[in-house]
């Protein structure tokens, strides 16, 4: 009995250290936050305000667009991976997860190699007028690339958890495969899809490494944070980080709400 209690004590101590390690940096960000610097950026200096506001808006719009893209393009793939058995499925699943494994800078280089001006698909992208270097489209492409696996994997688990017999019955009652999916499978998977979308959005929001390579401009808030950190130091960067941290925390609360509902 005494041994059990001792091991529990050790485990609790380690757990406390872990919690502190995870919580203290976030708390420190808010504790060291200087309202005067914040006011200087967002209220008193029009130039800094314009730059920061534009970076925030770009980040928000690009991450939302990337998430919308992931939902539109990811749902069919997630459904196929959840429902169908076919040769090469494992390989396909691995391909989906590769962006998760790549270091962020490598992900950026890989995107340039594929869709950049000198990339493999340059003949096609140039004909279509698609430019990713230093464009909003480039930011969306990077964010979609790094966050797609999170959305697809979460949606896949959601689809797989829906009893296949529900679709069988729907089709035996006369519904086409698409109608059965829209009226039965999709509504029942909405929670997983929403959770996947929020997680993917949070991932897109946090990207910086690949963006530094593919699309430094227009600056996202993360790129601007890196830039200001080297130019102005920590105080300005903290003030700039607060809106992003609040947005990330809001997404986290949204995610918990979706999961717990």
């Amino acid at each position, binding site marked *: 009995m005494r041994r059990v209690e001792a091991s529990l004590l050790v485990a609790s101590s380690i757990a406390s250290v872990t919690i502190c390690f995870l919580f203290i940096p976030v708390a420190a960000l808010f504790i060291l936050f200087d309202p005067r610097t914040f006011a200087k950026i967002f209220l008193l200096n029009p130039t800094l305000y314009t730059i920061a506001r534009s970076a925030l808006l770009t980040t928000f719009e690009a991450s939302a667009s990337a998430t919308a893209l992931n939902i539109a393009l990811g749902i069919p793939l997630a459904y196929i991976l959840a429902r169908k058995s076919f040769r090469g499925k494992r390989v396909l699943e691995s391909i989906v997860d590769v962006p998760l494994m790549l270091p962020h800078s490598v992900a950026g280089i890989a995107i340039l190699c594929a869709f950049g001006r000198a990339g493999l698909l340059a003949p096609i992208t140039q004909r279509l007028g698609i430019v990713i270097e230093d464009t909003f489209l480039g930011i969306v492409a990077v964010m979609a690339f790094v966050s797609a696996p999170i959305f697809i994997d979460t949606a896949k688990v959601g689809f797989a958890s829906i*009893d296949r*017999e*529900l679709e*069988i*019955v*729907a*089709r*035996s*009652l*006369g*519904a*086409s*495969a698409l*109608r059965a999916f829209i*009226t*039965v499978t999709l*509504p*029942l998977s909405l929670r997983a899809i929403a959770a996947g979308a929020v997680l993917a959005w949070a991932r897109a929001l946090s990207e910086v490494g690949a963006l530094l390579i593919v699309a430094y401009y227009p600056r996202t808030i993360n790129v601007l944070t890196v830039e200001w950190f080297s130019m102005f130091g920590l105080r300005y960067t903290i003030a700039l980080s607060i809106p992003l941290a609040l947005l990330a925390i809001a997404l986290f609360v949204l995610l918990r709400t979706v999961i717990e509902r």
Partner: protein
Amino acid sequence: MISIRRLVVRRGGFRLVIETLDVEDGEYLVVLGRSGAGKTTLLYAIAGFVDIEQGSIVVDGVDISSLPPERRGIAIVPQSYALFPHMRVYDNIAYGLRVRGLSRSEIEKRVREIARRLEIESLLDRYPAQLSGGEKQRVALARALVVEPKLLLLDEPFTNLDPETRKSARELVKELHRELGFTAIHATHMIVDAYAMASRVAYLERGRLVAVMDRHSFFRSPYARRYLEEYSDLIDVARELGV
């Protein structure tokens, strides 16, 4: 009339072979077999949910084996009943009618009619999670029958019910069959179901259809005896208890 000829279905390492099987209009055929004999595979092949390797399934003179499930006119009631959990009972029953594009008033009329027939009118506003096993089964039957299918497939429909409900459920399905005259194929591993429900019995063993007989002949055949031998312990206990 349903005619199955030289049907071969492969699922993984399992192979189902049906040389010939005919089901007359209005007939209640019970497909009897142990677990893994291929009963569900046969039902799914008829309904179009597994690809067939060869053979034909002809319904009323039309080969349906290459048609998608939704164009076969075959309704299925799975073992789990598979009620749509996000829809009320009314919407579950109305599903197939909505798919067919019927008017709202026609749908309402038909749903209320079948609900009255199955004595589930009071359940129409409930969700499936609020129903008992027996109620779920009635709703699943109503949902399948309201579209007036050419053929009704029942996959172990009584297995999930407690013994008391099972008895009344058998009576209900029998009565509905008598009244509505639908054609049914009922797959089960329970020999009691075959005894209580079948006009004919098709006996499956390890993926092969080994006998198709009228109920009377089947229960005097070696197949039924062999099947019953597995329950001999139970029968002895019942005898001892005087049940």
